[in-house]
């Protein structure tokens, strides 16, 4: 088997808030390969989003090791992490986080105008349109978010995640704000990205959506375990 895109070994994370410190991840091991899709199930507050934020380099683990293509990025600098977030990862959130004053195309272009390299306007536009076409909303490129439905908005958000051709796509409850039918459509769009070799981690509450992924994991008490059918 090929080398994993990412490998987490014994990752632990304790959240220190105003209350007692709480260990939300306790010795988590996880590998993601190119073209593989993983669903992570779990109760609210079980640490699913924390896991995603560690994988997405929003935060750093307290203990354990994080390898990205065999490179140890456990204690990576914020500057390098920003560059990796731009080049390696794509993010889809429950709330779509589309800027209301920008068109769909401009929202997608946000990921290209981020100070990590520079693309001329024409190339930028071409990449944006390609990303919008991949998720089937190219015809909505000039629309502002207020004129889009929830499903359309989430597909624009997915296009924003895909526009830099990420190797790993992280989706944090992307169907949480959508009805069942639209949610299915969005999950299908996300799953289709693995056909191009993208690794996908989907955090969800929905078992049906999880079952569409190649592997389903369950996070409980800070420990990640395989879900049996």
């Amino acid at each position, binding site marked *: 088997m090929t080398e994993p895109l990412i490998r987490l070994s014994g990752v632990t994370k304790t959240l220190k808030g105003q209350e007692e410190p709480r260990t939300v991840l306790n010795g988590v091991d996880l590998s993601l390969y190119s073209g593989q899709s993983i669903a992570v199930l779990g109760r609210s507050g079980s640490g699913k*989003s924390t896991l*995603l*934020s560690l994988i*997405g380099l*929003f*935060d750093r683990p307290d203990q354990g090791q994080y390898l990205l293509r065999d490179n140890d990025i456990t204690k990576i600098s*914020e*500057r390098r992490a*920003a*560059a*990796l*977030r*731009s*080049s390696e990862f794509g*993010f889809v*959130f*429950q*709330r779509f*986080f589309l*800027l209301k*004053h*920008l068109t769909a195309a*401009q929202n997608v272009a*946000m*990921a290209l*105008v*981020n*100070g*990590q*390299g*520079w693309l001329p306007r024409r190339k930028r536009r071409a990449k944006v349109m390609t990303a919008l076409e991949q998720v089937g909303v190219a015809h909505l490129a000039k629309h502002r978010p207020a004129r889009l439905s929830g499903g359309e908005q989430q597909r624009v958000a997915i296009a*924003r995640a895909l526009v*830099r051709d990420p190797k790993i796509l992280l989706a*944090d409850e992307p169907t949480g704000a959508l009805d069942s039918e639209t949610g299915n459509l969005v999950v299908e769009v996300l799953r289709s990205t693995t056909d191009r070799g993208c690794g996908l981690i989907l955090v969800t509450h929905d078992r049906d959506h999880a079952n569409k992924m190649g592997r389903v994991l369950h996070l409980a008490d800070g420990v990640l375990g395989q879900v049996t059918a």
Partner: protein
Amino acid sequence: MIRLSGRLRSALIIGMQGIRSRKLRTLLSMVSLFLGVLAVVAVQAGSQIAEQAALGNIELLEGVDGTQMMYVSQNDKAPAVVLDALQGKQHAVALVGTRAFIGEPNVSPINKGGGPIDQGASGGYYCSGYSACSPDDNQAQGPPGKAVELSLTAMTGDNRQFQPFRLQSGRWLDFTSPASLAPRIVINTKAAEAFQRYQIPAQMRITGATADPTPQIIGVVDDGSGAPGAYVPYDELANWLPPGADTSLQVMTAPSETALLQTLKARLTAAGVPAGQLQVRTINSKAHVAEQLELMRLIFLGMAGLVLLIGVAGILNVGLATVGERVEEFALRRALGTPRLLLAGIVLAETLLTGLFTSMLAIGAGVLGLRAAGVLVGNSARFSFLHDLAFPWQAGAAGVAAGLIAGLLGGSIPALRAARIPIATVMRA
């Protein structure tokens, strides 16, 4: 063509998007900053204009900086020595000053004492330009009549290389043509005003002269003086002045003519003029006045700076509120790979662009204000310097600098806040 770095371009693009999406807030920032930048522009423009006006007049009265001025005390032989020494010298001029009355003979002049016409008889005596300062003579003791007392300055050459008199009408003195028995004189604007106001016969009495010539007024100059005056070629005055007449004598030379001044000093001393009474002064009035104006400018700039601070506070206030509103946007941008530095740059780009736009508006207002002032009051004598006055580029540069500094100061704290927004905000939302 200047190629900006990717980060700078990104900051400018996103900054412009931010400004466009929050037009009202941007406008409010600009309103508070506008007055501050306008104050800086006005102070800088005002000081430049005042400097131009003040320095323009000071050069007319005192001479351009660097000019050497020698004062020669009263001596019978001195005029002949000076005239001989200056013969054929292009960069040296002797100025012989006396007093003259143009108008009815044997009357007390309208401006007794030679002062400004508006002030009437100032009494006593009045020293102006190069005229001799002496008590009123008998000619000025008669009954009041239509005559104007003025300072009369005779020159051996064109003094405008040292004092750039502004020709208002007619022509300047011709030092190459033969002397005329009817002296060709150029009067200053104050004398011209007097002759325009009063019907005065063309008879000129020169202090110490035995007969009254009929002058030919060939031109009018602005010599910066507040009192009536006239200028005449020395040859033409010499026709009427007896030797030993009560005159003053000065020599103006270019800075390079130090050898000539030394020779002149030696010859005058040999002719009996006490060496201690031969004073040579180098004109540096412009530098002196500029120094005084600079102090005033700094005081006013300090006051304008305080007004500008209010604008900075406005930008800061709006900037902080905006960053508070855009927490999710900034967290999202970080999630998409935008470095912290660029996030700070985006906020700074917005405030700097706001400051730049505001400064453009303030400069535009300054240009229009100056034009309006020129149209409204530029025709009056007091504000004639406003007529056709160009907007000083220094004021424009100061306005742009003030706008950018205000943008930088007002935007730096919001920029730091934006850069510190935790990225996990998007996960918790």
